């Protein structure tokens, strides 16, 4: 049992701190929401009511979509784009989708390769891009969820100010939607770009995200 837990410890750890952070966000968000309500002459709401509010939903989804966009773009960009000296990059002569032999596809599949890597055709094409497809679907789904909750919030504010509500499509073109979107994108893009740059000259002993401590700065695509 202990071995089973140790072998899944990365996902278990992040799953647990995700739940703890989400609970903390819910509690802090509830307090802040009620402070705002009472400051504007409204009445406080229960935690249960806050958890079903668009205020909470939008706050969660605007961060989800940007995280999944970040991973999706990073995965896609690193197929073709390189960074000399970074372990996050492929080796400098490996840019591109690589050969069937390199990717162990179809005739080059090995005994323990997944069946869909071996069959060829649509199934192999789908399986070859399945991680990107899933991350893209989650990104689009969470961005949609952000848009509908943001739209609800926006129209609530409009009504509070005795102004006309707008359609979902109009909201997609609004400054409010794009501010909530881009404020998250910019931080993700900076974090990924700076991390790739920092890994050229800096190391973390034992981490697969870093080169081995003794690897030269020039070493590209070498993981620890």
């Amino acid at each position, binding site marked *: 049992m202990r*071995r*089973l837990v140790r*072998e*899944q410890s990365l*996902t*278990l750890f992040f*799953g647990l701190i995700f739940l703890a952070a989400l609970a903390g966000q819910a509690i802090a968000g509830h307090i802040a929401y009620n402070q705002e309500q009472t400051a504007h002459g409204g009445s406080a709401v229960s935690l249960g009511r806050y958890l*079903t*509010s*668009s205020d909470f*939903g*939008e706050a*969660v*989804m605007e961060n*989800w979509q940007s995280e999944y966009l970040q991973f999706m773009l990073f995965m896609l960009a690193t197929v073709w784009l390189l960074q000399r000296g970074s372990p996050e990059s492929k080796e400098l002569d490996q840019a591109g989708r690589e050969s069937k032999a390199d990717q162990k596809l179809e005739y080059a599949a090995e005994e323990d390769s997944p069946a869909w890597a071996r069959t060829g055709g649509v199934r192999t094409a789908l399986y070859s891009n399945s991680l990107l497809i*899933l991350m893209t679907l*989650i990104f689009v*789904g*969470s961005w*949609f*969820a*952000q*848009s*509908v*909750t*943001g*739209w*609800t919030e926006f129209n*609530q504010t409009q009504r509070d100010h005795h102004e006309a509500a707008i359609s979902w499509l109009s909201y997609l073109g609004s400054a409010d939607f794009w501010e909530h979107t881009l404020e998250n994108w910019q931080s993700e893009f900076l974090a990924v770009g700076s991390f790739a740059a920092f890994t050229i000259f800096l190391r973390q002993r034992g981490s697969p995200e870093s080169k081995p401590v003794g690897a030269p700065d020039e070493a590209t695509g070498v993981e620890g």
Partner: protein
Amino acid sequence: VAGFHQAPLAGLAMRVVFLVYLIGVICGITYVSVIGLAHH
């Protein structure tokens, strides 16, 4: 022998981890989409 007995369990644990994350994310997105749309 220990490895032989643990291999199916280890495979099951990987599948459970994968499905918990996948279903969790889908449920989260669906939940927020529904509460967003329900107010209209």
